[in-house]
């Protein structure tokens, strides 16, 4: 059996990083740095190699049967609830696996240089490996619960890595915030799982894994009546992980972690988990136009919302973080309009160029002695040539300039938005606007960082140097990928084959089949049968031009006429600028409405008044006190006087006698 061999490889894709993490974590400082680094990179490398192997095997299979699985036995088995401990790979998870392990591998290599002087070197790589393990569990998990294990696992690693430099209270707080905000999302996700499970459980055949994706897909029709609820709940989870409104707030703070972490987790891989999950559950989402609408709306609003914030940020990583939020919005938008394949395509290209940008920024920060504020940078073009050029490529890719990777995916998203019946002109216009803003703020970032004069102190200036090869090499590779990575999705209208979309088609087409089966809605993506090639050309051209304009304006404003920026800043009395700089005061709003009142309520009302006062004070100690006081009062009868005792005796007798005479 050919597929059998592949099956058992699957588990090792996941387990090898785990083993490496365990070894690295347990031995920690006893391991020399070289060995620790080698172990960690090697593990991810092996994982990548295995992923490639399995992926190649998939490519050799007939398109409809591209599916391999590896079951390690029952995980939770109770009654008719059957949940397996297993992994599967189909075209979708195959792509994700390659991206995660591939980019992950590069970032590991990069980290060797970046973290070389950190005392927590071993710990760092253990966490990173653990992250790869969790992410691969998420991607390859056979069922929703396995996905959830990975889902929480990556959240944990994110927490650990954000708080990696826990010496600073702010880092630790950011890590905690990330975990907790994600947990709020998980709240929805869990409920979604429950709803799926309860709906499906009575209809299950013997031995069918309840949450297995295959089962879900097979029985999607049963869930049609509650599809909207399920999808919205699941999407709540996705907004947490993929940093969408309203749960995006953790991602900018997460930049407190080491930069490779930002690149790997908070740009390339983990944050796309929400998109992946939505794509994975496409067969359910297509059953509910409402849910799709919500996804699209949240996506596009997030895209434009985050882009506006990115305009004003001064921290180089914050800009990239908001850019990530914005790009994730695009991905969600794509999902929402039914273009799941394109969403994943953008996940991939975004992974390349955003990882590149983050690593590039890391290189800059490294060179600037851990300075992150762009206002004191500038003029690094000469001093960090490799970083500069690769960064520029990343910027162009992000701005959607042909023929860089970003162009293909972003353009497709906008086109699908425009043409899909779930989309329309308004979402397209918003997305289009955000694309221009993206180009603008990225150019601002490049200009402030690399052009002009260096504004840093002399002390810092003297230390500026290009990063070592372990750091630049991944930059170069990612730059190449940012350039050519998009070509596999070369669209039809430009004479390509949209090979990427086709590769994923089996995963998503079955969803449409289920949709037809469930007779819920007309499959969204399937709807666009007619290609309006002309329109596509026009839109593509427009967005390219728009991107170029954005870049140009950005260059012009920050390079030539800085006064424009200043006057923009003072527009409307500086209020809009202030709002944007403070990120629309969303954090403060949450703090004011939920966190602070919640804390005060718990402390002053629940604990002090209800618990200590009411229950313990009044009911418990109060009743004890009443009893004790009664005792003390009754005690007073015992006054030592014989005659009083005799009185009591006599009264007793009298009552006794009277009772008898009256009752008789």
């Amino acid at each position, binding site marked *: 059996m050919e597929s059998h061999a592949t099956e058992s490889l699957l588990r090792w894709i996941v387990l090898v990083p785990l083993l490496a993490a365990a070894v690295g974590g347990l031995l920690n400082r006893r391991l020399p740095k070289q060995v620790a680094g080698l172990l960690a990179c090697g593990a991810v490398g092996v994982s990548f190699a295995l992923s490639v192997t399995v992926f190649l095997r998939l490519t050799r299979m007939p398109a409809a049967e591209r599916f391999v699985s590896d079951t390690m036995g029952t995980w939770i088995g109770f009654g008719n609830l059957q949940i397996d401990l297993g992994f599967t790979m189909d075209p979708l998870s195959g792509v994700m696996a390659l991206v995660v392990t591939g980019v992950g591998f590069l970032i590991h290599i990069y980290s060797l240089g970046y973290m070389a002087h950190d005392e927590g070197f071993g710990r760092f790589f253990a966490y990173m490996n653990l992250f790869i393990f969790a992410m691969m569990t998420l991607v390859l998990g056979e069922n929703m619960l396995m996905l959830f294990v990975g889902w929480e696992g990556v959240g944990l690693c994110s927490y650990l890595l954000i708080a990696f430099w826990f010496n600073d209270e702010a880092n630790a707080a950011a890590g905690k915030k990330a975990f907790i905000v994600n947990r709020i999302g998980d709240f929805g996700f869990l409920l979604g799982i429950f709803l799926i499970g309860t709906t499906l459980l009575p209809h299950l055949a013997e031995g069918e894994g309840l949450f297995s994706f295959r089962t879900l897909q097979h029985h999607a029709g049963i869930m049609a009546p509650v599809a909207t609820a399920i999808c919205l709940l699941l999407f709540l989870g996705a907004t947490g992980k993929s940093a969408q409104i309203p749960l995006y707030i953790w991602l900018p703070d997460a930049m407190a972690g080491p930069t490779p972490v930002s690149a790997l987790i908070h740009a390339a891989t983990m944050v796309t988990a929400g998109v992946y999950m939505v794509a994975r559950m496409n067969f359910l989402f297509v059953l509910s136009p409402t849910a799709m609408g919500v996804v699209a709306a949240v996506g596009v609003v997030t895209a434009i919302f985050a882009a506006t914030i990115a305009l004003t940020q001064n921290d180089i990583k914050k800009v990239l973080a908001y850019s990530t939020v914005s790009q994730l919005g695009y991905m969600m938008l794509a999902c929402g309009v039914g273009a799941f394949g394109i969403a994943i395509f953008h996940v991939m290209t975004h992974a390349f160029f955003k990882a590149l940008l983050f690593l590039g920024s890391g290189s800059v920060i490294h060179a600037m002695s851990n300075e992150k504020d762009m206002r004191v940078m500038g003029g690094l073009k000469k001093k960090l040539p490799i970083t500069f050029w690769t960064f520029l490529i990343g910027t162009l890719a992000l701005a959607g300039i042909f023929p860089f990777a970003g162009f293909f995916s972003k353009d497709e998203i906008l086109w699908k938005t425009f043409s899909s019946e779930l989309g329309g002109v308004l979402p397209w216009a918003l997305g289009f606007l955000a694309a221009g803003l993206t180009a603008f703020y990225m150019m601002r970032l490049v200009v402030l960082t690399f052009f002009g004069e260096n504004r840093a102190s002399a002390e810092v200036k003297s230390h500026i140097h290009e990063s070592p090869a372990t750091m630049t090499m991944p930059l170069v590779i990612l730059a190449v990928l940012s350039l050519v990575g998009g070509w596999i999705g070369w669209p039809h209208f430009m004479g390509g084959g949209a090979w990427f979309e086709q590769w994923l088609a089996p995963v998503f087409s079955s969803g449409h089949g289920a949709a037809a089966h469930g007779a819920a809605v007309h499959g969204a993506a399937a709807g666009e049968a007619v290609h309006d090639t002309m329109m596509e050309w026009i839109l593509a051209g427009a967005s390219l031009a728009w991107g170029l304009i954005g870049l140009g304006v950005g260059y012009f404003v920050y390079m030539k006429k800085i006064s424009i920026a200043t006057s923009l800043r003072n527009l409307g009395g500086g209020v809009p600028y202030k709002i944007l700089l403070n990120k629309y005061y969303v954090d403060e709003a949450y703090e004011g409405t939920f966190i602070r009142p919640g804390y005060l309520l718990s402390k002053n009302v629940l604990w002090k008044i209800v618990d200590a006062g009411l229950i313990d004070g009044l009911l418990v100690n109060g009743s004890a006190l009443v009893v004790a006081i009664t*005792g003390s009062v009754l005690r007073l009868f015992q006054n030592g006087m*014989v005659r009083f005792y005799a009185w009591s005796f006599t009264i007793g007798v009298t009552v006794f006698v009277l009772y008898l005479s009256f009752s008789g």
Partner: protein
Amino acid sequence: MNELIVPNLSSQWGALLPYLIVAVGGLLVMVVDSFVRTLKKDHLSYLTMFILICVVIVQIVGRRTDGDLLGGMMITGDFTRFFNYLFAGIGVMTTIFATGLYDREGRYRPEFYPLLLFSILGMMILVAANDLLTIFLGLETMSLATYILVGGVRGNIRSSEAGFKYLILGGFSSAFLLMGMALIYGFAGGTGFADIAHAMKTQNPDVLIVGLGSALMLVGFGFKVAMVPFHMWTPDVYDGAPTYVTGFMATAIKAAAFAILVRFVILMQPQLAFAWYPVLVALTILTMSFGNLVALAQSNIKRMLAWSSVAHAGYLLLGVVTLISPSVGGSDMMMRSQEIGESAGAAILFYLVGYALMNLAAFGIINVMNHKSGEDAVDINRYAGLSRRQPLAAATLGIALLSLAGIPPFVGFMAKFYLFSAVVRAGLIPLAVIGVINSLISVYYYLRVLVVMYMKEPEDTSYHGTELVSVVTSGVLALLVIWLGVMPDAFHRAALVIFRQIHF
């Protein structure tokens, strides 16, 4: 039944022997005391114990000639033997405790021993009474001896005061008891139980005479068992009496009084159960609650145990109430009701024994505790850290108190279990609930002593006791408390058999 039957004494010697032994033994001790003049009087204690042990031996090996004695004045059987064993046992323990104290203080009360024996004799007679006159004689013999035991510590005003209070109120209550007896005699035309039972069956009981008579008698017994509101002597007397006497009173007198109370209510039950029942229920509830509530407020361990004995009297009265509850007395469910009655009766017997064991263990320890001034060790706070100074004494007292609180695996729990199960069985669930609430309240004050002993550090003023014999004796009692708490069945079955005998 008025014809004079010359009692055939020769056939009754066997049954009378225990009584004679105690009576003659008491006199013997007095004589020995007068003639053998030594400074150290501990031979008296050995003699007393020997006499009491003789009672036990005679009862074990002697012929069982059960039935009426002395022309129906007394009746003997397993029932009386059971109590005689109990009294003898309590007597031995009390002798040990008392002697221990004398040894330590170097001050003897030679009159203690004969008085103890006479008091026990009174109890034995009381339990065996089959005639109002015998009741009276037994009760007074017991009481008179006890008055002196309580009040006879020379130079101790607290003892005198306690003795006087006990005596004056005891006399007062005796008057009511006697008046009750007189009225019942008037109704029945005889003082024998048989006469009364016969009259109850044949004549229409006049409520005023019989009801008043039995009510007054109940008051008299109520005084002895410390039923509220006739209980008020209890704390003062328990407090003022020497500790070993307090232990004796709390166990032996309570047992004797309950024995006769049980027999009395059974005798009067068929016609009067309904008339008495509500009052008795009310007084039972009052007794339990009053005892426990006031015990909460005590800082004097003897007073606390006194109030606790009031509360325990309440629990025992619960058994008595069950015994005469309408569902038992004279109802049509005879088969079932007899079972319930028996279970209540057996529970009372078991309770009395269990109560005696745990209370003696407690008083045994309290008795040996002392401090420089030679006063009784009554201040609970000065038991601080006893577990460090004397782990055995602390453990014994601790077990006794936990048992009194009704915590398993001690006998106190099993006693309560038997009792409450009889109560529930009779359908008196509200009473059972009140009972358990009460035992809940009681936990608090018993625990307080444990807190002091085990969880506070000893101080200079803390009590200390050195009498090894007493402590070990109490320890043995504590072991019995555990043993009967774990393996109560054999004993309970015996109690059941014994109780059937008096259920005439």
